């Protein structure tokens, strides 16, 4: 052992080349054939032959989606990787029910195509078969950013529409429900937008955030669970958290609206209800590098009275001093969303989320007033990471408590075992 003095005890946490872990162990890392820039669509298929296939949407062109066989979590195997039709579109989001997969398409510019979603038959995972395309392109539409598809019947999504002109270009994607019971002919079943965000909707436009944080009043995640099929839980970006009554899907009605920016810096991303506990877990998304939009947090919200949402705590943040300048984004983003599907981990006590350069983290919310961080894994910076640090973007936890998480730029897939 040779002496290798270092000048100070500068923490390894500030060094993006070091992995950090607590109660999570890396089982495998898959670079996805060099196309490891992944978006925020992850879903697990339990194939008829017994395999578990993890489907992932890419962050950006040229790749569309990638499937990996994770039956053996320590030895993931690439199943298929597909291409986008051109470089100015991204898939970003997907969901799987049985052998049906829905994949979002969002274009860089309004008016471009494909802008909508595809439905695939993935009964043979190696050969996804296109069933139908649902077009949402239009002069003011970039298409679909995020889909939620868990019942095999309806796709809930954040999308523009051919007939929708926003009052501000950032407000183009709103909540829509699409009936896919006949997958050959998807049809819009309903829509809701924040009043004032559509030209001539009769409401005054919402007061915009400071230009340095303004990313729009539009929908992001649009979650609907079988426990409350009459409710949609919507992260409405700069508009905050929204609960909609969708008992009549053709006429969604506002139930609650919790807007907390300003004073915070916008981008409400996910509204995850914990049924039976009267709680919502609400995550922000960090969208600026180097801590410029800090703080981006995960909130615990008391929703016992769903018309009066009261924040009661935030998840303890990873240390700002360690991560803010570690490279790239540092702040909350996607949560594992307790998908009501057989392969998904479901818990109203343990919440797992990604924090970009602060990795993937698990929180015990058994005491909603005092959430505890109980596990984390921060991969070392992947090779060629443009920001110099990992940027964990999305997470999926399966019913074996195996955590799958992906890097936004280059790192691909990390498979972790959680001991909490």
């Amino acid at each position, binding site marked *: *052992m040779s002496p290798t003095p270092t*000048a100070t005890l500068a923490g390894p946490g500030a060094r993006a080349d070091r992995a950090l872990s607590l109660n999570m162990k890396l089982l495998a890392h898959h670079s996805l054939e060099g196309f490891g820039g992944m978006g925020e669509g992850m879903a697990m298929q339990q194939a008829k032959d017994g395999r578990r296939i993890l489907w992932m949407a890419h962050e950006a062109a040229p790749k569309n989606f990638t499937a990996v066989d994770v039956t053996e979590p320590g030895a993931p195997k690439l199943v298929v990787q597909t291409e986008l039709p051109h470089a100015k579109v991204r898939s970003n989001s997907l969901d799987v029910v049985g052998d049906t997969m829905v994949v979002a398409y969002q274009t860089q510019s309004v008016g471009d195509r494909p802008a909508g979603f595809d439905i695939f038959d993935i009964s043979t995972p190696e050969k996804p078969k296109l069933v139908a395309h649902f077009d949402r392109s239009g002069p003011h539409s970039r298409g679909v950013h995020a889909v939620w598809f868990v019942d095999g019947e309806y796709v809930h999504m954040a999308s523009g529409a051919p007939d929708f002109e926003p009052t501000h270009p950032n407000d183009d994607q709103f909540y829509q429900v699409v009936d896919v019971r006949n997958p050959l002919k998807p049809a819009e079943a309903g829509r809701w937008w924040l009043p004032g965000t559509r030209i001539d909707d009769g409401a005054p436009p919402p007061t915009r955030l400071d230009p340095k944080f303004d990313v729009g009043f539009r929908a992001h995640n649009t979650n609907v669970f079988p426990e409350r099929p009459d409710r949609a839980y919507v992260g409405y970006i700069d508009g905050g958290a929204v609960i909609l009554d969708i008992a009549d899907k053709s006429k969604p009605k506002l139930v609650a609206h919790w807007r907390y920016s300003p004073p915070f810096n916008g981008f409400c991303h996910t509204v995850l209800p914990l049924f039976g506990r009267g709680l919502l877990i609400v995550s922000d998304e960090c969208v600026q590098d180097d801590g410029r939009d800090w703080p981006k947090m995960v909130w615990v919200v008391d929703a016992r009275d769903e018309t009066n949402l009261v924040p009661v705590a935030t998840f303890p943040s990873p240390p700002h001093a360690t991560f803010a300048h570690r490279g790239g984004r540092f702040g909350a983003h996607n949560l594992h969303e307790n998908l009501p599907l057989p392969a998904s981990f479901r818990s109203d006590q343990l919440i797992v989320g990604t924090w970009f350069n602060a990795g993937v983290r698990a929180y015990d919310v058994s*005491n909603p007033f005092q959430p505890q961080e109980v596990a984390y894994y921060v991969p070392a910076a992947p090779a060629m990471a443009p920001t110099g640090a990992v940027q964990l973007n999305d997470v999926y936890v399966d019913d074996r408590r195996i955590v799958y998480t992906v890097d936004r730029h280059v790192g691909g897939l990390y498979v972790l075992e959680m001991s909490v």
Partner: protein
Amino acid sequence: MNALARSPGADPFASRLPVTLITGFLGSGKTTLLRRLLAHPGMRNAAVVINEYGDVPLDHELVAASSEQMTLLSNGCLCCTLRTDLQETLRELFVKRRAGEVIDFDRVFVETTGLADPIPVLHTLQTDGLLGAQYRLNGVVTVVDAVNGMRTLDAQPEAVKQAAVADRIVVSKTDLAPPAAVERLTERLRAMNGYAQLATAVQGEVDPAWLANIAPARASAAEEELERWLPRAAAARRAAGESGALTGALRSVGGTHDAGIDSFCLWFDRPFTWERLNAALQTLAALRGPDLLRMKGIVHVAGEPAPLVIQGAQHVFHPPVALAAGQRTDPRSRIVFIVRDIPRASIESLFAAVCSL
């Protein structure tokens, strides 16, 4: 609501960082043992807490950088001197670990001073809720010097206590003592604490895994792993193939030196109820706490889906921790007691009385 409650399904063993206490009288070779241990590649993410940089320093080659209290060893280990107390040091270590200010160590070794009574250190992990949420006791390793060990045990009650509460006993410097003396010392230690595994070492050379993996590391621990922590039979019995006569002979050898210290295992064929288990242990702790040097067991409790790991020292008990359901384990409960001046028959009768009510 319990702020420290773990989510259902959490592994109460694997989700805590193991702490191993290394104790032994002055000059027994604790630091030499640590030095050899830390040089092993499997220990590169260890943190060590030492009381002071002693006469036998950790290898200079190992020391890469140091601050006032913390030293990063060039093999990656973290070494820090004990601050005002162990509680504060362990808390600070965890906070720094989370902040990424120190390596994300995966185990901690705490070296006590030679004169230390190890039991208060065990209590630290048992009674501090914040520490208990992050750390678990892996075990107590006691180093006994083959050259001076006999004399030290004769003269120093603390040395006897250190050996009595051990999970592992390392007899050091066996190359410097006559084989007959090593054998006598070994017999004495086995008689005193037959449930500790014992090994001899020259220059601190012992199998790192033997020291690092003492307590179960996961709830789904198999019987072999449990056996490492809680042997089903005392060492003397194991050696003699369950020959009671030989055990008696050894016990008389030990008894001449360490009258009063005894270790034994009680077996229970039927599951306890919570009330009876609590009543028996609480009565024992209330009446003879100071003499109950260590207690550890794997017990079945009616209504619980899996056996529970229990342990304590003197009047302080760890909260019981459940093993995973569905494992193949002995259907009987077993509890090892290491006691001072408490006849085995008294504890047997106590349990018999409580369980018959």
